[in-house]
């Protein structure tokens, strides 16, 4: 795991915020909502994988299964 993951997630946030502003200015509030929901879910899947890997690491460090 690297620091670049944080910057990638932050980048996704910026892109979605900008697209959100465009879409709502164009009068497509519904699609703007869907877009932000999709962004949140994509990042969530990413984060869940990271959390699972991290918890596995903690288990191996503290030898929880011994």
């Amino acid at each position, binding site marked *: 795991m690297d620091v670049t993951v*944080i910057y990638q997630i932050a980048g996704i*946030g910026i892109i979605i915020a900008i697209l959100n502003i465009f879409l709502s200015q164009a009068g497509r509030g519904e699609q703007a909502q869907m877009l*932000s929901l999709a962004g949140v879910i994509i990042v*969530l899947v990413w984060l869940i994988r990271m959390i699972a890997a991290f918890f596995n690491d903690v288990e191996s460090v503290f*030898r929880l299964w011994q």
Partner: protein
Amino acid sequence: MGGIAGIVTVAVALSLFLAYLRREMAPIGAQVALAFVIVALVALLDPLRQVIDAFWELAHGAQVRPAYVSLVLKAVGVAYLTSIGAELARDAGEEAIGAVVELAGKVAILLLALPVVAAILDVLVRLLPG
């Protein structure tokens, strides 16, 4: 030491940036904070592994029974996991879920410590006359 400096630098930069992102896109702001927490903790896990290995060495030198050392480390590990989980839940604004996670950790540690408590009681009963 390089790892610590990196963590602090990224933390300062991110907290300035998050002031903007939380206003424009609140859920992804929380997720960025979560990602930083996980990355920082993974970076801290390697020094922690060294500390725990040293702890094992010390216990081995003092001829403590490995079962007890392993028990203590398991309790510390459970506390580490559940406190992180509870903080993450609180960070997302869910106080109740954080409290339940902490309760789960307490129950798990109690369950781990149960054999030791039973052993202490056993010794006490044997020490008592009659």
